[in-house]
């Protein structure tokens, strides 16, 4: 078992390295034209001391949006899920509302938000809406997973609805919530970046779109690379957490 696992790990590592080599080779020999820079050029560009303040500022702004959106969206989704779990009659209406908000394209929400809030508040709000949707869906289904026997026990012992929710349903929803924490990471980043495409004053999204329009190819690829690596590492971290929770709750 362990040898099979380590074998697949090594193979996966080789796959990733091959991908990076392909990126470098295609860029070096210009197989995909002038707009595909080799990996090394992007890395050199990223580590140029003169560029560091630019990246630092943009990254800090975007990560703040992602963080605020993630935390507020996650908390909001959880609270809404708890409300719809505790007060059964409101649930169909809330389900629909959340689904409709989710179906509105985020680029269509952005101008509305710029009016309602401000250009700088738009990235965290869009990211929060996306994250909230994932949390709401995962938590509503997770809250319903407690076993019938446990539920009967709580009823027999005279637990109130609220304490049943907090002591039985919430703990049994933890694995679903942990999955939502993992799955909403890329969504939080997408929301922040799209929000920034609509006239935020700083951030990686702004960097990406202005680099696209001004043909600054290494800058474009660097900003995308930062976003991808950040999302990937946060995703990996939360997958570990998800595994821990699942093992603990089994």
């Amino acid at each position, binding site marked *: 078992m362990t040898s099979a696992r380590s*074998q*697949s790990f090594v*193979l*996966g*590592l*080789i*796959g*990733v390295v*091959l*991908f990076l080599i392909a990126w470098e080779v295609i860029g070096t020999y210009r197989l*995909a*034209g002038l*707009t*595909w820079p080799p990996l090394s050029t992007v890395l050199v560009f990223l580590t140029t001391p003169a560029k560091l303040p630019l990246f630092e500022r943009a990254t800090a702004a975007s990560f703040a949006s992602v963080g605020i959106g993630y935390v507020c969206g996650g908390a909001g989704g959880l609270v809404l899920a708890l409300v719809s779990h505790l007060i059964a*009659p*409101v649930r*169909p*209406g*809330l*389900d*629909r*509302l959340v689904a*409709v908000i989710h*179906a*509105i*394209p*985020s*680029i*269509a*929400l952005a*101008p*509305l938000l710029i*009016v*309602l809030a401000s250009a700088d508040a738009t990235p965290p709000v869009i990211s929060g809406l996306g994250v909230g949707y994932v949390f709401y869906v995962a938590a509503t289904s997770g809250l319903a997973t407690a076993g019938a026997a446990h539920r009967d026990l709580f009823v027999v012992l005279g637990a109130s609805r609220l304490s049943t929710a907090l002591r039985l349903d919430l703990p049994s929803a933890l694995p679903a919530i942990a999955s939502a924490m993992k799955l909403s*990471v*890329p*969504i939080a*980043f*997408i929301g922040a*970046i*799209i929000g920034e*495409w609509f006239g935020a004053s700083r951030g990686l*999204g702004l960097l*990406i*779109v202005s*680099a*696209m329009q001004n*043909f600054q*190819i290494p800058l*474009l*690829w660097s900003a*995308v690379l930062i*976003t*991808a690596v950040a*999302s*990937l590492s946060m*995703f*990996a971290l939360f997958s570990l957490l998800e595994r821990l929770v699942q093992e603990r709750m089994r």
Partner: protein
Amino acid sequence: MTSAIFELSSRVAQRYWAVALVVAGWQIWVSAAGLSSIVLPGPLAVLTDFVGDPLSYAEPAGRTFAVAVVGLLFGFVLGSALAVLSWSSRLLNGLLTPLGLIFTSIPVVTLIPIIARLLGYDVRTVVAIVALICFFPAFVYVGSGLRALPPGSDDLFRVFGGSRRQCFLRLVLPSSIPNLMLAFRLTAPEAVLAAVVAEFLMGTDGLGHMFRKAAGEFDTERALATSLIATITSVACFGLALAAERRVLRRWT
């Protein structure tokens, strides 16, 4: 008869009260605060703009829909093909699976500007972007479907002397269909959204372009009506995919 109508309306009220509340609150707020329609028009004004000239929305909506569907199909054919390839070879599987997982855990939307620069500002680029965004879910879901066989079924094929090809065509491929349809339903609305974002960024035809033009001219009623159409298109795609999934599953299981 009246009781049926009553039942229907109470079901609608039960499901849509929250949406109706938000829309009503929006209208009341706009009327009460006396906001100019450039800043934020009420839902009634948006609806009037749409009803006044529905045909001008139909063409861009049709274009976006077509681009999204073509891109979706391309992405799914490529993703499924690669999943099958990586099923047939353990080496390829080991090499590709982590890459597929990596690409599903990064914000793929940020790749749109890169693709736009690589391929040029063109309708084909929008198709390529939609295909790319649909490719990874197809690859991951079909790949896991190809491996999730009913327990013991592959032993049965081996015992009866089925060849590897027979096993693939009659067992593995059919058993991946439910996962394929699940991925289809999940990505269909995303395909529309990706198409709209790509059109918005590049200014090619379609709803995204229409939206950008309207927002640039401060025609906020038209911009919001465009969002409404984009939402309806995305929901329609989801509905179609859901119907397709149900239909396929009924035949399949």
